[in-house]
């Protein structure tokens, strides 16, 4: 005895060539919709987890979002540096518990190099306040020591004790190598899922040291200071890119922000990471909404294709419907048959779409992690995603009522002998 859904399944299988294209289009549309949602969610999570435990970020005056992107996410470049004296004054403020300098600009094989103080490893938090942890070695102690983020070590296969050389500039802007002053890897950090994973950390003095015989962003011709000689120079930096600041009391945050913004020595800006992030999201919200609208439309197109294909096939199937009526199927069962068939195609599309999403996330995860520091973790469906799937299934049910109703009308009008 063949149950009704099985008849619908056999019928769908009989037209699998046409319907598989519909399944594919629904799958792609669903994968796109969920992918956009997931990427958005992961990006927000990733960004929010990267700025944990820091009350203020201070840098040369610029747009808050730009300072945040540069200092925390190593994206873009700072328009100007911040004087060392300014940093010293900032650290001396009574409300300031700690201040960690950040000096960016060099890179190592595509990964950004950050000059900082050993304090950094105590102060920086990620996720919901988790401190940094070493999986191997320890923080830098000597001038040419380097601590690697998890991603750097993994991708380049580095171990503690290995020597590496830095490059001046980053990406396409690399102008020359600092290969005369090699660094020794002294520590490797545990994975954080933040831009720290992609960062090479060195001492602030080391940044100064490798640029001693440089001027205006290029080596000075004829001048070369050997590595063992640099210690004789004053390695206090003249400028840094930005500073991360922790306060004794969060209540003082706006007061400190105001006084930094009014600093007489130079034009500085202090930003609250959370506020700057919100600003960033409000900037990209339009793009997000547009993406979401587009992917919703793609789903609608997919479902419209499904209805069109089933409706188009219906005329050829009027004989089949008449036969079903003749053996006793009610118009309601004919209606159900067509609707079930459409829903099965949608279900196939949803499942394939999820598979595509998982496959695409798995394939893209290393790249996204390396380039954007966003962790596309493999995981179960969130309630939000289940909600979207339910919406698509519901929309499909509504859409499939159309061919169902058409078949119902046809089977009533045709009786036993369809007039073709």
């Amino acid at each position: 005895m063949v149950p009704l859904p099985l008849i619908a399944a056999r019928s769908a299988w009989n037209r699998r060539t046409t319907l598989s294209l519909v399944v594919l289009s629904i799958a792609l549309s669903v994968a796109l919709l969920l992918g956009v949602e997931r990427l958005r969610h992961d990006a927000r999570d990733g960004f929010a987890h990267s700025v944990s435990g820091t009350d203020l970020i201070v840098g040369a005056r610029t747009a808050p979002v730009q300072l945040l992107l540069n200092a925390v996410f190593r994206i873009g470049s700072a328009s100007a540096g911040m004087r060392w004296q300014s940093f010293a004054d900032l650290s001396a403020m009574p409300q300031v518990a700690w201040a960690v300098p950040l000096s960016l600009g060099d890179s190592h094989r595509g990964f950004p190099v950050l000059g900082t103080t050993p304090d950094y490893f105590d102060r920086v938090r990620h996720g919901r306040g988790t401190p940094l942890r070493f999986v191997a070695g320890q923080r830098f102690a000597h001038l040419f020591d380097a601590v690697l983020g998890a991603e750097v070590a993994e991708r380049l296969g580095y171990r503690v004790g290995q020597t590496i050389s830095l490059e001046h500039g980053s990406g396409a802007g690399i102008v020359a190598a600092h290969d005369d002053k090699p660094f020794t890897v002294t520590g490797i950090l545990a994975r954080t899922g933040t831009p720290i994973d992609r960062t090479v950390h060195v001492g602030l003095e080391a940044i100064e040291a490798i640029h001693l015989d440089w001027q205006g962003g290029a080596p000075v011709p004829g001048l070369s200071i050997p590595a063992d000689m640099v210690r004789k120079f004053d390695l206090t930096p003249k400028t840094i890119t930005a500073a991360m600041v922790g306060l004794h009391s969060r209540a003082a945050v706006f007061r400190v922000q105001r006084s930094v913004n009014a600093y007489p020595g130079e034009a500085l800006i202090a930003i609250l990471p959370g506020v700057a992030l919100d600003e960033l999201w409000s900037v990209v919200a339009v793009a997000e909404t547009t993406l979401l609208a587009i992917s919703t439309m793609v789903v609608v197109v997919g479902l419209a294709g499904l209805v069109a294909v089933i409706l188009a096939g219906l005329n050829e199937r009027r004989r089949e419907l008449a036969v079903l009526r003749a053996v006793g199927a009610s118009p309601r069962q004919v209606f159900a048959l067509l609707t079930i068939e459409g829903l099965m195609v949608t279900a196939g599309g949803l499942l394939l779409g999820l598979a595509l999403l998982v496959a695409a996330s798995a394939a893209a995860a290393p790249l996204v992690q390396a380039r954007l520091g966003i962790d596309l973790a493999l995981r179960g469906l969130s309630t939000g995603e289940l909600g979207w799937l339910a919406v698509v299934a519901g929309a499909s049910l509504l859409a499939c009522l159309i061919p169902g109703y058409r078949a119902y009308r046809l089977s009533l009008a045709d009786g036993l002998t369809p007039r073709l």
Partner: protein
Amino acid sequence: MTASLRIEALAYAWPGAQAPCLRIDALEIARGERVFLHGPSGSGKSTLLGLIGLVLRPGAGTITLAGQDTGRLSGTARDRMRADHIGVIFQQFNLIPYLSVLDNVLLACRFSARRRAQLQDAGSTPTGEAARLLRQLDLAADHWTRPAARLSVGQQQRVAMARALIGGPELILADEPTSALDAPRQQAFLELLLGECTARGTTLVFASHDRSLARLLDRELDLAALNRAADPDGSA
């Protein structure tokens, strides 16, 4: 002799049409009777079969089937009545192309609890009876699991016959079932059908435009004479 089918003061007009295309004052077919319904194409044979088959609803008059006044039945009850009491054989394309031969035959039991119950009473099962019928109609077992669309037209018609007969309905409606067959096969098919109907005491209404087959049946009905609806062409 009890009546299997009784029609009184029947009138039917297609939706939207003013005048009825079919008007029959009285028609009675006895249980077990095998009737040849003759009429040229377009004379309303298919319409009459649609009415008797409870797919179409008459505008006026009554159709009594197996003692039931079918006009009083709801749509669902009419569908159940058709599934239980009537077997239908079309001219061609009788089978669901994506179901196997066996599943096509079993489809009749799928929609009728009564046919299943009758088979059970007879100590058989739907599958067992389907196999018996198919074998009897000379369809070898290696055909059974094939998709119905792979069979020849003659084989398909025999599968349709097995489906109409399974579970012992009272009435078989055959709408030009032999028209797609060549002459020698026509006679063979009809003889098979008549044999089965006689053996089971099944009533048969066999509609065809080809009067050469009429001699094999009990009675011949001329629909052109029976139908009192004024034909637009003037040939009532």
